[in-house]
């Protein structure tokens, strides 16, 4: 297995009024293609910050980040957008679908932001169908997000994360707002994706979920305390 993500001595500070908050301290981390990684820790431990950093959403102050063998420490905002678009898929705790768009349009959205967008309308429709089928909600394509239950919305968000066929799925407490039954459903979808060799990085504070993980990273006060 090849190293997909390699973090070396990452430090991050938040600037406060007259002091600096050291949120991530000397993070060294290797994630391999096909890993199911869980980042655990109490709130304020820096786990979401670490996930956003891995997902090119947040910046760090020093250290080195290699993604897929390339140094990505100093990418421009446009390059970061392109990496996010073609290599990463995001799933959030609050689903974060866009209400003014239909389910189908929500899923299609990452395809529209693809730079070399020679994907035809027909091809886009085909892919939307394919991934809606993967999450088992094909017949909901024309509905609006507000008409769906939380679990269904999260499945739509997963379909959206998958549509560009990314290397990595980044999930920030994807089951945090769901009941235990739908939680199982979502986790099973993620597990299935992992079996199809998708790398999954997930933030959670639910100990029960660690059974799905191949690697668990424990964070405390911005430091990695344990890797299982």
């Amino acid at each position: 297995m090849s190293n997909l993500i390699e973090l070396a001595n990452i430090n991050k500070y938040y600037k406060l009024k007259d002091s600096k908050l050291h949120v991530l301290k000397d993070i060294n981390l290797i994630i391999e293609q096909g890993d199911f990684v869980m980042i655990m820790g109490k709130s304020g431990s820096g786990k979401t910050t670490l996930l956003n950093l891995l997902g090119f959403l947040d910046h760090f102050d020093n250290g080195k980040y290699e993604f897929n063998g390339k140094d990505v420490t100093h990418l421009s905002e446009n390059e970061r957008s392109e990496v996010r678009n073609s290599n990463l898929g995001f799933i959030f705790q609050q689903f974060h679908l866009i209400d003014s768009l239909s389910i189908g349009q929500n899923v299609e959205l990452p395809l529209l932001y693809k730079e070399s967008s020679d994907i035809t309308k027909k091809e886009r429709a085909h892919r939307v169908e394919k991934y809606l089928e993967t999450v088992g909600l094909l017949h909901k394509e024309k509905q609006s997000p507000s008409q769906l239950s939380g679990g269904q919305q999260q499945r739509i968000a997963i379909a959206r994360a998958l549509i560009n066929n990314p290397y990595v799925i980044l999930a920030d407490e994807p089951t945090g707002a769901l009941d235990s039954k739908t939680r199982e459903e979502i986790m099973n979808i993620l597990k299935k994706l992992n079996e199809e060799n998708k790398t999954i990085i997930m933030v959670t504070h639910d100990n029960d979920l660690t059974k799905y993980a191949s690697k668990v990273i424990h964070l405390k006060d911005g430091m990695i305390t344990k890797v299982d």
Partner: protein
Amino acid sequence: MSIINLIKTSVYSLKSHKLRVFLTMIGIIIGISSVISIMSVGNGLKVKMNESMADTDANKINITFQAENLEADLNLIEPFSKSDPYYLKNVEGVEKAEASQSMGGIDFTSGEGSYFDKTTFIMLQDYDDKETIVKYGRSLKKDENSKKLIMLDYTAAETLFKSPENAIGCGITVNGVIYEVVGVLEKPGAFSLTGGTSYISKDSSDAMNSETAISSLDVYIKAGYDKEKVFESINKKLIESHSNIKGEYKLQDPQATTKIFEQIIGYLTAFIALISGISLFVGGIGVMNIMYVSVTERKREIGIRRAIGAKPKSILLQFLIEAIMVTGLGGLLGILFGFIFCKIIGIFMPFPPVMSLSSVIGATAISVIIGIVFGIIPAINASKMDPIKAIYN
């Protein structure tokens, strides 16, 4: 993201706030429709004026003399001699030249009329069976051409005789010649251009004109010649033959008057349109305000779009296109309302407003520009938003 998809995206988000979008548009609609109607009324006025001026001879120019000493009596200076029209005929490009007593295209002579101790200023015109309404007495007859008779205008008759009907049969002195009053005309309407004119026979007026000095010349230019150039050669000729007087000959093109009027109407229209354009400015600020609200409200959406790979430029264009669509659609509705206003105004005005294609294109362009100008800052704000802060608020 391709432009078509950006436009679609904007349509979706505008659709989800129909009422708000419409309220924002009202400012633009009012602004554009009022500018359009004012410009159209101005255009209509110009067209109407051109129509009424069209009957003045396009090839006729009028040459006057301006003495160096502005108070000099032209009758004494004699800037034009009776032989001038004859000589000027030989100038290249001149069809014919004749003495004129006209001002601004209408022929009239003026004189001082007196009856015993009372005097008044009288405007005189040839009587050639013009439609005149005689209040007292009668009109001039055709066989009376050689007689010194006058149809007096109402105001002059009132001044000279107190009660106008007393004037019939009396003799008044005009420029030293006695005329018998045969008729008194109806009081002219408030806006009559020829109001206050008295009429005498053609022979009498010719006789009167031949006694007074020529104050200006009417020159008819042959087709294909430049008025200015012909005037230059005429000017040379006139200065040669009147070398002893001080002053300059001036060209008066009757169409120049029309042009000046047109210009004035143009300036006035532009000025009023500018004032009503202030409402466009206010409308633009409304658009800016609503765009700020929209950006703040949709922070989360911006964050999501950035997370799934939207570049800052895509976000900027999305909000800019939204603003342009609000103002552009407002502009189109404004043009429609302006058109309806013009039709309504046309019912109450003596001339119909003319909506020109250029004002329609201009209005569309202006509304799009307003969208860009007032939408760009909120759009830049949206594009510069940090995705993390946008998603997690």
